[in-house]
């Protein structure tokens, strides 16, 4: 069941997930829960071919991500090559094991921007959530990033265990000199889906956090841009996931799998193509996986006749699969979905006070990953 037959728009965004290896163990990681079984990474030459072919098609924003991209020994070489090709290069890092020499080397290679993540505004909570002692080092790295003239995005993933620190997190961002702050409520894929009951905030916590974000957006206007990403479970309408499937975003996973979104690996019988076997042009234009949700031929009701279908494209297919078992269902975040109760039930269940005690967080590491 392929989508529209008209030629797809070219990719604009390439997310290069260089490795699943990561020194941190965040229990909301979006990597696949069974990442430990996916070990063979593609080579430097494979990455260069992917970068060149994607750039030729029109990709211009490039994110180096993971896992922790600093783990890859060829990171500076890949940044250098990407800069030559004319990409705007973004490094999305935990900052772990970053030092001044690496920051300088990346700058010389042409890196345009660094996004560094913190897990909380206090050492105790940051190091608990990260599963690794890292708080003080991350703050040092953030200051070095600014010292060397990069624009800096500070990213903090929000959930029930840290959302009460909202004000302290924003004060910390100001102190560290962040140009942009991304306060992203946890999205429930991968490890976050497994730990959902322990991570989901209450409606009251969210309202308080949003009010604080709005207040700082006003007072920091013109100095620091604050993006507050609302959690779609509480929204009533789904997000326009990936700006529409196969329209803008291309993710390449560490093993060379090409994905229309970074969660698509989990969709069963999807047969995502691999860059070892196909060119980016074949993958983007011709593969079944990238064509699957293009256009609206795939839609069922209530999406098919919905006046908003060109706005949200039916929402997130990975979420539809995770919550309803069928990726072609309407994203159940939508309150028009007949299965919307899968979302409201989850919110109610997470609000039960017994949850955190009965089931501890499952941290993202190789040992835990091998259970899946």
């Amino acid at each position, binding site marked *: 069941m392929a989508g529209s037959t008209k030629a797809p728009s070219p990719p604009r965004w390439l997310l290069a997930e260089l490795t699943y290896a990561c020194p941190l163990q965040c229990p909301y990681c979006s990597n696949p829960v069974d990442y430990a079984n996916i070990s063979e990474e593609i080579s430097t030459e494979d990455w260069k071919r992917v970068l060149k072919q994607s750039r030729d098609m*029109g990709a211009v*924003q490039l994110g180096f991500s993971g896992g922790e991209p600093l783990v890859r020994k060829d990171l500076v070489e890949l940044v250098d090559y990407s800069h030559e090709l004319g990409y*705007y290069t973004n490094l999305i890092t935990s900052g772990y094991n970053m030092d001044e020499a690496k920051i300088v080397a990346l700058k010389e290679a042409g890196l*345009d921007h660094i*996004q560094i993540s913190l897990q909380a505004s206090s050492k105790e909570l940051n190091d608990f959530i990260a599963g690794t002692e890292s708080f003080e080092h991350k703050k040092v790295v953030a200051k070095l990033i600014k010292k060397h003239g990069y624009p800096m995005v500070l990213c903090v993933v929000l959930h029930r265990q840290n959302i009460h620190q909202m004000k302290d997190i924003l004060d910390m961002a100001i102190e560290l000199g962040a140009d942009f702050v991304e306060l992203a409520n946890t999205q429930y894929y991968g490890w976050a889906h497994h730990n959902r009951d322990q991570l989901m905030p209450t409606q009251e916590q969210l309202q308080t956090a949003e009010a604080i974000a709005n207040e700082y957006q006003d007072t920091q206007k013109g100095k620091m841009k604050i993006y507050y990403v609302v959690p779609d479970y509480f929204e009533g309408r789904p997000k326009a996931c990936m700006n529409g499937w196969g329209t803008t975003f291309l993710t390449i996973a560490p093993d060379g799998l090409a994905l229309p979104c970074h969660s698509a690996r989990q969709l069963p019988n999807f047969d995502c193509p691999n860059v070892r076997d196909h060119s980016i042009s074949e993958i983007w234009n011709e593969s079944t996986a990238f064509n699957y949700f293009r256009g609206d031929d795939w839609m069922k009701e209530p999406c098919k006749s919905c006046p908003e279908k060109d706005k949200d494209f039916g929402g997130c297919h990975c979420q539809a699969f995770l919550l309803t078992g069928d990726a072609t269902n309407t994203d159940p975040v939508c309150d028009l979905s007949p299965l919307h109760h899968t979302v409201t039930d989850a919110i109610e269940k997470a609000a039960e006070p017994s949850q955190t005690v009965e089931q501890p967080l499952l941290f993202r590491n190789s040992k835990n990953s091998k259970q899946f």
Partner: protein
Amino acid sequence: MSVLPEQALQLAPGYRLQWEEAQGMFVLLYPEGLIELNQSSAEILQVCDGTNKLADIVQALETKFETTGLEGDIINFLNIAIENGWLDQSA
């Protein structure tokens, strides 16, 4: 904040204006973001070089396109660009 006539305009740090052959258009690039520009927006941003002030920008574009009366449209766009943090103003 709106455009101040006595100050020079330039792209904010971290922003880059770039011609994209595949799309046949100029794009404005910044951390994790991309704005596809129409022709008039791209023309204005190209002359925001850190030395040109409002009057210089108007004159440069009116000369280039052999026309007059562009000031209103240019001010409207510059106000949006400044408000969004794409442009910095400096004395």
